């Protein structure tokens, strides 16, 4: 058992750090949940891609470096320690790409992945519907067979990044006669600017249009944009759900970096006699370290040929609660300055704690609510009987 990096891994870390030092914007980009910020973040993706840092774990032919999970974790640690911008491409990179690697065709990979890696095409997810949240398999949007493809109709909602994104991916009911709700679903990719698509941005808690409702009225999608076999969409989608909850969506680097910043904030500005606050800072540091080590342990398991299944639900509950605790503690250290947003000229750290806090509050809801995750943990990891939700 060890936690040692090889000389080559240390060199990779040094290379990433040097590049980030030279390229990370000195002043944070505007919030990626605004039109101006979205464009700036798209430009940043192009910068990353130009030197092959946007998708380090992908094969080289699609713009990556073929990096191991461990190197990807190293990159992420350096990325967030450097204070680099949030990733506007993350829905595509973390959800759609793994699905294409597992279930897509060579043609789809060659067509979709390079423009995703460069930020030229930004992807939004289209899972939830007004009547289908945690019970996703009850979804009602339809894909109806037509010559050469499918016609999509219905309503999707809580579609992250869709206010400004280019394309989306999601599940549609292609066989309404199927015996069970999760049968007869098909996984499709579709353009957000096509005839029949209406995008209505939705302001999140702080008013920024971070997600959107999508109204689809017989939107044509060619056969080549079906991933996996028609009717197999649930199985295909669940392979990305694990990614969303588990290892790849929230790398430990962002939390260890945030814990480091929180510690600095606390040392510089907090009342040293406030031991209750000190204990919360310590707990955030401990939890960020625990998440990093837990992830190394999972990465070691994967490297040893094991697979990570329902354990990804442990990750999801842990990081989402850690993220909130980190930001809440920071806001308490900041006191009256904590509420100043990224648009306030006097906001500490350009308002990143306030923005981060707002963002963190969604964590226990998206990617499968934490209630659903706890059901999964109890049923699949502890073997408790299924019951009514």
């Amino acid at each position, binding site marked *: 058992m060890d936690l040692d990096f090889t000389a080559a891994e240390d060199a990779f870390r040094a290379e990433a750090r040097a590049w980030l030092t030279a390229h990370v914007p000195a002043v944070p980009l505007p919030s990626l949940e605004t039109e101006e910020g979205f464009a700036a973040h798209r430009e940043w993706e192009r910068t990353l891609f130009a030197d092959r840092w946007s998708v380090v774990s992908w094969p080289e032919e699609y713009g990556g470096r073929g990096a191991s999970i461990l190197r990807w974790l190293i990159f992420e640690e350096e990325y967030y320690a450097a204070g680099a911008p949030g990733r506007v491409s993350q829905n595509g990179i973390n959800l759609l790409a793994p699905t294409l690697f597992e279930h897509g065709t060579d043609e789809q990979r060659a067509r979709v992945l390079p423009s995703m890696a460069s930020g030229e095409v930004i992807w939004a997810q289209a899972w939830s519907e007004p009547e289908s949240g945690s019970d996703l398999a009850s979804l009602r949007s339809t894909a109806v067979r037509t010559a050469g493809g499918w016609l999509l109709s219905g309503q999707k909602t809580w579609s992250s990044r869709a206010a400004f994104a280019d394309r989306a991916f999601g599940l549609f009911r292609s066989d309404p006669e199927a015996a069970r709700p999760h049968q007869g679903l098909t996984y499709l990719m579709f353009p957000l600017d096509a005839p029949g698509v209406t995008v209505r941005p939705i302001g999140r808690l702080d008013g920024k249009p971070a997600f959107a409702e999508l109204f689809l009225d017989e939107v044509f999608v060619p056969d080549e944009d079906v991933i996996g076999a028609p009717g197999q969409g649930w199985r295909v989608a669940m392979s990305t759900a694990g990614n969303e909850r588990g290892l790849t969506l929230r790398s430990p680097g962002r939390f260890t970096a945030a814990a480091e910043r929180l*510690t600095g904030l606390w040392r510089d500005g907090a009342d040293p006699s406030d031991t209750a606050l000190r204990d919360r800072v310590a707990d955030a540091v*401990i939890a960020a370290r625990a998440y990093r080590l837990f992830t190394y342990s999972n990465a070691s398991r994967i490297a040893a040929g094991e697979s990570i299944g329902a354990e990804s639900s442990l990750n999801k509950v842990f990081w989402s609660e850690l993220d909130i605790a980190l930001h809440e503690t920071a806001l308490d250290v900041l006191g009256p300055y904590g509420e100043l947003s990224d648009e306030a000229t006097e906001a500490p750290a350009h308002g990143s704690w306030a923005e981060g806090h707002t963002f963190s509050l969604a964590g226990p809801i998206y990617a499968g609510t934490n209630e659903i995750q706890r059901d999964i943990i109890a049923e699949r*990891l502890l073997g408790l*009987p299924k019951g009514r939700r």
Partner: protein
Amino acid sequence: MRFLLDDEQREFARSLDAMLTASDTPGAVRAWASGDTAPGRALWSRLAEAGVFALAVPEPYEGLGPLPVELAVAFTELGRHAVPGPLVETVAAAALLDRLGDQDAAAAWLPRIAAGKAVVSLCVPAAGSPYALDPDATDAVLVVAGDTVLLTEDAGPVQPSADPARRLARPLGGTVLARGPEVEAAAGHAADVAALVTAAQALGLGRALLDRTVAYVKQRTQFGVAIGSFQAVKHRLADTLLALEFAQPLLHSAALALAGPDGREAGREIAAAKVAAGDSAYAAARAALQLHGAVGYTDELDLSLWIRKARPLREAWGTPAACRARVLAP
């Protein structure tokens, strides 16, 4: 990097688990609590044969160690079975004796500790507690007072603990075993070892509480169904597992750090592991008690042997507040 226990370490854990399962450990705990230490000492000898104490003793003194990762693995199993006695204190005393630089003292005690022939308690008031654990059941008590290590066999009257299997008393008098500037650093190291293996014990304790409670809620029925099918029950147990799962890598990383060259960093890591393991074990005890209902609140049910150990382990060798302060120490 391979941040996983290797096959040998896993097999070691499995064999200890099997041995303790076959040894009527609950009976030994209850006997120990009533002042009959014979079954506990017999168990101690079997642990020594399995090599547990040798892990804390260096090779020149007939040991195998120091091997902090293996110690953490072993103490997780000792906690899983709520084994009684000054286990933590004995391996911490071995760490102290190893670092004192006094070959006579080391030669007198370390081989006997490794062989399970010496049960030693340790009291380091600077590390938080004025009491020695189980001094009436030991062959010696070491007491660190400033730059002096005292050796005694005497202690004041037992101050009963809320966990009857923990017998606390203040050490009395003693002869000087060592004195000098090296004592403070050696005692600090011994306290670190104690904190690490206490965290390991807590983690194992929490795992046992979770396992027993999961088994119980699967078979206990109310309203015509197993209570484990209720979401409130599931979520409490999911949270229990979550806390234990994330404490474990902190423990293993701390053990690796203790084996490494940077003592200050090891101290921070051990403190982090102690907080996480102590908190998660106590939370497991609370969940176990709540989900067993009234029967969980009884002395009769062996579950009590685990439940009442959770709080003392959380405080022993580093309270949560002291550990949190250490995590942030510059």
